[in-house]
């Protein structure tokens, strides 16, 4: 057993030695050394090169698998017997060297997943007693254990902060390289990095159960989950290799041409055919993972490439899923001063509309400095406060009219317009004058409109918006994004009906959503696409996850799967074309054993290089 391992590990060195011997043999021949010298070197090269191949063949045979190695082994022995030392030496060398090249190029296609896996935390600082710490391997941390994470270190588990405060970078989970403050009670995830501060975390999920480990597993499984085309080729290859063996024996027996028989063995090796489809899938899925698009398998790639109908959920999918200020209309001379007052008052409230205004004002770099002397909430209408000598009222129109404030025609029109645009309206009155009209809405994601055009350029013919929201809001969003078809006031089960209807019309449907209520549609659609910021249920049910929840990633997913599917088809054509070409060459007597092997190895390289284009 040790011998095999040794040969396995030194295959590349053996290829090198064998290559040098062959070079020496031909070099000697060129310098006019006797034929005996050349032949003895070639014999040595053949033997050295054949040993690892034969060992592999024997191992496979022991578990009843007829492998490519067996075909090559028999061919080499055959060539040896009839004294074709050139052939035997060159074929073994090409086979080994081809394996080496495959290994090198595969490394490239596998890089993205290796990169992900390398980001997984390895060690943790376990708290073993009061002020007693011990650095251990992450595997030794159990649920309930407490770990200390210092600045610069990775959080080793999924858990909750129980002491300390830190700025955490969660880029490995969300793809968003932003520092988030985490203090007591906050959830932290394995793989994120504490940039500043020190936190103590109690473990809720460890090892393979962490969100990060699951992402890695998802990608790994996806890269190796086969598409229908791949499965077909796999099955084909299993029968193909023994069939080639039988064919070679038959031809040898019938024609009595021993050389022809062994040439068939070499030419029959199903190299590019076996590797062509998987490398495309691996490169494609790897590229996706690097760019925040998790594709759960080879089959998903093919189906997504053929999607012609995309159905969207609204909230959290096309829109941000949170209230933000959409417009501010000012009826006063100093708009900024009024905004500062509004923010100061609204800070008293945790109402979503109030918070949207506070956030907005902070983003405008205005300080909400005015001092409030008195404030009271008017239930269902808004808030009333006193700042210095001024009385400030913020809320619905009724709050103002009740206080005897009269709105002008212009102001009424502005309010009407904002309402039509689907905004919630907050009015700010200072003393008896309306100062500001603030429209708050769940705003569109910034990349929504471009996304529609990009999808249409990539083979999507029908776009649809389905929402549980009102008709007015749905229409506004659909128009703003450029989606012609929308249906509002829908229950989760009714969304499914629309998905099924489209499928019944022969369309391949992708559903994009984020909520638990979207899960039935995600599962029903040919491809379910979940937003990474969405619920766990949606992510589990989906076929593709957009980690940063952007619509640009959706376009990327569509483009990438199309490119990957095309690449896969090209590789299959290259592989089958090579075999056909070699067969024709053989019939015409143009292909020899060594040149056949060379073409084979080249075709393997060509399919891998072709797949590598997908990495960029």
């Amino acid at each position, binding site marked *: *057993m040790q011998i*095999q*391992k040794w*040969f*396995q*590990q030194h295959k590349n060195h053996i290829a090198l030695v064998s290559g040098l011997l062959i070079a020496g043999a031909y070099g000697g021949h060129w310098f006019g050394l006797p034929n005996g010298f050349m032949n003895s070197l070639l014999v040595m090269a053949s033997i050295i090169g054949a040993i690892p191949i034969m*060992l*592999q063949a024997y*191992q*496979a045979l*022991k*578990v*009843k*698998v007829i*492998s*490519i*190695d067996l075909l090559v082994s028999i061919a080499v022995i055959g060539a040896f017997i009839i004294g074709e030392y050139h052939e035997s030496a060159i074929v073994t060398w090409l086979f080994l060297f081809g*394996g080496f090249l*495959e*290994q090198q190029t*595969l*490394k490239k*296609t*596998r890089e993205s*997943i290796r990169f992900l896996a390398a980001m997984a935390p390895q060690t943790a600082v376990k708290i073993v007693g009061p002020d007693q710490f011990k650095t251990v391997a992450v595997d030794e941390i159990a649920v309930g254990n407490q770990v200390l994470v210092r600045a610069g270190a990775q959080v080793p588990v999924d858990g909750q902060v129980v002491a300390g405060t830190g700025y955490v970078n969660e880029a490995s989970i969300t793809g968003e390289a932003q520092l988030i403050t985490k203090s007591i009670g906050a959830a932290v995830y394995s793989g994120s990095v504490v940039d500043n501060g020190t936190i103590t975390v109690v473990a809720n999920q460890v090892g*393979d159960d962490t969100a990060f480990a699951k992402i890695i597993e998802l990608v*790994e*499984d996806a*890269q*190796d989950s086969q598409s229908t085309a791949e499965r077909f080729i796999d099955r084909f*290859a*299993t029968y193909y290799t023994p069939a080639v063996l039988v064919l070679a024996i038959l031809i040898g027996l019938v024609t009595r041409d021993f050389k022809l028989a062994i040439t068939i063995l070499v030419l029959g090796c199903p190299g590019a055919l*076996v*590797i062509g489809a*998987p490398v495309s899938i*691996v490169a494609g899925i790897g590229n996706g993972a690097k760019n925040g698009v998790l594709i759960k398998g080879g089959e998903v790639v093919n189906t997504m490439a053929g999607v012609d109908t995309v159905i969207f959920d609204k909230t959290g999918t096309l829109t941000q899923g949170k209230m933000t200020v959409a417009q501010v209309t000012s009826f006063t001379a100093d708009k900024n001063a009024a905004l500062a007052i509004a923010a100061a008052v609204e800070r008293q409230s945790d109402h979503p509309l109030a918070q949207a205004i506070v956030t907005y004002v902070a983003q405008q770099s205005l300080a909400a400095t005015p001092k409030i002397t008195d404030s009271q909430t008017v239930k269902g209408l808004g808030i009333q406060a006193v700042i210095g000598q001024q009385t400030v009222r913020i809320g619905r129109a009724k709050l103002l009219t009740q206080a005897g404030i009269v709105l002008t025609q212009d102001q009424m029109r502005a309010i009407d317009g904002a309402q039509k645009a689907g905004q919630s309206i907050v009015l700010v009155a200072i003393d008896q004058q309306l100062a500001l009209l603030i429209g708050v809405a769940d705003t569109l994601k910034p990349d929504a409109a471009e996304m529609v055009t990009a999808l249409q350029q990539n083979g999507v013919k029908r776009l649809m918006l389905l929402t549980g929201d009102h008709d007015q809001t749905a229409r506004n969003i659909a128009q703003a994004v450029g989606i012609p078809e929308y249906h509002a006031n829908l229950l989760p089960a009714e969304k499914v009906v629309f998905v099924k209807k489209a499928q019944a019309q022969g369309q391949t449907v992708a559903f994009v959503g984020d909520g638990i209520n979207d899960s039935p549609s995600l599962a029903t659609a040919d491809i379910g696409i979940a937003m990474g910021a969405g619920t766990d249920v949606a992510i589990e049910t989906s076929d593709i996850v957009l980690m940063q929840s952007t619509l640009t990633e959706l376009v990327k997913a569509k483009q990438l799967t199309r490119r990957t599917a095309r690449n896969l088809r090209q590789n299959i054509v290259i592989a089958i074309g090579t075999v056909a070409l070699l067969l024709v060459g053989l019939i015409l007597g143009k292909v020899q054993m060594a040149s056949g092997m060379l073409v084979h190895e080249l075709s393997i390289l060509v399919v891998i290089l072709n797949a590598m284009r997908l990495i960029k």
Partner: protein
Amino acid sequence: MAKLVMQLDELSCPSCLQKIEAAVEQQVGVKTVKVLFNASKVKTEYDETATNPEQLAQVVTNLGYTVQNIKVK
């Protein structure tokens, strides 16, 4: 029924995959085997009364592949 994941040194030939799959599958007590070619991992479900992780790892080692680590779930 237990689940075992073996991490191997990098796999580079598709026929290695066939071999490992066939060899592990033929072991008594092994229900399912999946070799992840790109991740270079062997995932298998087995009956813990009929076989054990060490024995299964030995099968892979005997084929000439290095088992870096084993994880039982």
